[in-house]
């Protein structure tokens, strides 16, 4: 039950209490320092890490920026104001907002039940919640095809209801919901666990209803975890690609999201469009996640 590994750690927390006070004398030097300082070892390690990060992360990032601006700003504006591109951005936004709303409500309910309730199969369920994180997005999309596709098990049901799921928006929303499932639950579970139940019990004894207890006692304590989980979910939903590609069929102008547009534009050799859309998408996700990190870092 430790989600922290893939939910990024708070940016400042580890550095803030980085060194226990016991090491302070070693730094001042008047006490015999047991672990001798080897400055060259320090700078060698730092140099290796910086070089690694520069090659692995900064160089590709810089290349993308350079690639998008290769012919100046006007072609970027032309590419990004294309009707198909704009509608792709709107579709991505719509899917992400719906996904965040659904996970905000149901993800909170799941976290609540997982922490506060005891039932048979809880351990198994706890493991299953992490699974979407490891399942290939292509496989996730394929599962939905098997359910809702032409010969899908649930196809008769969706046809009777008149709601197309595969190759349509509902399927794309379901695919994104599956892929982003763990974030909200995993963010809230430790917070709920740490908050404990004493205050909830106190509220209940003075006659608060279950909803009142949640609204006025539990939720305020969860608020930051909630916002962080929502932000991560939203950022992930914006960038979802594989599952949506499989379930949507990528019909230009109808079921095309931003990532699907980037994929098609690369294929069509519309490089400026692909690069600038990728840059915009990357920047939005980056701002969201780093903003949430800062917020959480300040909280701690």
């Amino acid at each position, binding site marked *: 039950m430790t989600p922290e590994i893939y939910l990024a750690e708070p940016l400042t927390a580890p550095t803030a209490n980085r060194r226990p006070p016991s090491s302070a004398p070693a730094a001042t030097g008047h006490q015999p320092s*047991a672990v001798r300082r080897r400055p060259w070892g320090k700078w060698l390690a730092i140099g290796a890490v910086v070089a690694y990060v520069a090659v692995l992360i900064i160089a590709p990032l810089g290349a993308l920026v350079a690639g998008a601006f290769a012919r100046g700003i006007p072609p970027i504006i032309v590419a990004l104001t294309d009707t198909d591109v704009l509608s792709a951005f709107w579709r991505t936004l719509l899917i992400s907002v719906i996904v965040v709303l659904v996970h905000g409500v149901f993800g909170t309910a799941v976290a609540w039940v997982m922490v506060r309730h005891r039932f048979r199969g809880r351990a198994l369920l706890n493991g299953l919640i992490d699974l979407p994180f*490891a*399942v290939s997005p292509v496989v996730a999309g*394929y*599962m939905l095809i098997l359910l809702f596709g032409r010969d899908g098990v649930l196809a008769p049901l969706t046809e009777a209801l008149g709601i197309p799921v595969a190759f349509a928006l509902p399927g794309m929303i379901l695919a994104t919901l599956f892929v982003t499932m763990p974030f909200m639950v995993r963010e809230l579970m430790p917070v709920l666990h740490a908050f404990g139940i004493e205050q909830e019990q106190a509220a*209940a004894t003075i006659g608060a209803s279950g909803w009142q207890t949640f609204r006025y006692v539990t939720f305020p304590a969860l608020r930051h975890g909630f916002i962080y989980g929502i932000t991560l979910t939203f950022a992930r939903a914006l960038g979802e690609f594989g599952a949506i590609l499989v379930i949507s069929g990528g019909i230009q102008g109808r079921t095309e999201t931003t*990532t699907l547009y980037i994929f098609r534009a690369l294929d069509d050799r519309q490089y400026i469009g*692909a690069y600038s859309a990728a840059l915009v998408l990357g920047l939005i996700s980056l701002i969201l996640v780093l903003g949430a*990190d800062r917020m959480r870092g300040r909280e701690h």
Partner: protein
Amino acid sequence: MTQQALRFKPARAGSDWGVRAAAFTYLTVMLILPLAIIVQDGLRGGIGSIVQVLAQPVAWNALLLSLWTAAVMAAINAVMGTLTAFVLVRYQFPGKALLNALVDLPFAIPTLVTGVMLVVLYGPQRALGAWLNQNLGIKIIFAPPGIILALLFITFPFVTRAVQPVLAALDRDQEEAAATMGASRLMILRRVVLPALAMPLATGALLSFARAIGEFGAIVIVAGNIPLRTQTAAVFVYGEIESANQRAATAMSVVMLLIAFSLVVLVDYLQRGRNDA
């Protein structure tokens, strides 16, 4: 306390069951139903059918490529991720806050965008890509090195963020005590630091491996889709879906699910062991 608990329970029973029903319905529809359907579809043809699909060279090579590139990535990530965590925890240097922020950056960037970045940098028509190919004979895009680079980018935070808090909490007194007893730095590293880091290192590396096996967005851009050479398991599944070959798509999906599930269970087990200790 008992009285409180007694009064507490009946007051909330109704809404509690409502929340529970909502949570279970949601998990069943969103998670269990899709998983069940693919397992059912996989077992319909029997294990023999899955083996038959995997025995085809294209499928087998795709699975092998996924496994070995993920393994190479996990090994590099284990070393560099630990070193990054070590540098961030133990040393002061200018730009440290920026480096710390950069570790989270891959987590924020959509993997498809990662793929695009690598193609822009190393693509055969780009300056650096062409230079590497002509002068050093290294092909990165549409080749395994590109896959490994993409995987390294995507999973960079995993090991670092798993090791970092443990390293920060590690009692430095132990290291200093070992040093006063005459232990060399290498011995301290081996006997004191590494044992404490073994568990977070293992879980971080395993999770990055699990994530890498299923990765699609970055790889489909970077590796292309060359059967037998640069087609990974996920790209194979995509191709089989596109050509409406349900049997092959299902077989490979079931195998990938099995790998993912085993790894998640293993990581869960390792972490529980650590928390109990």
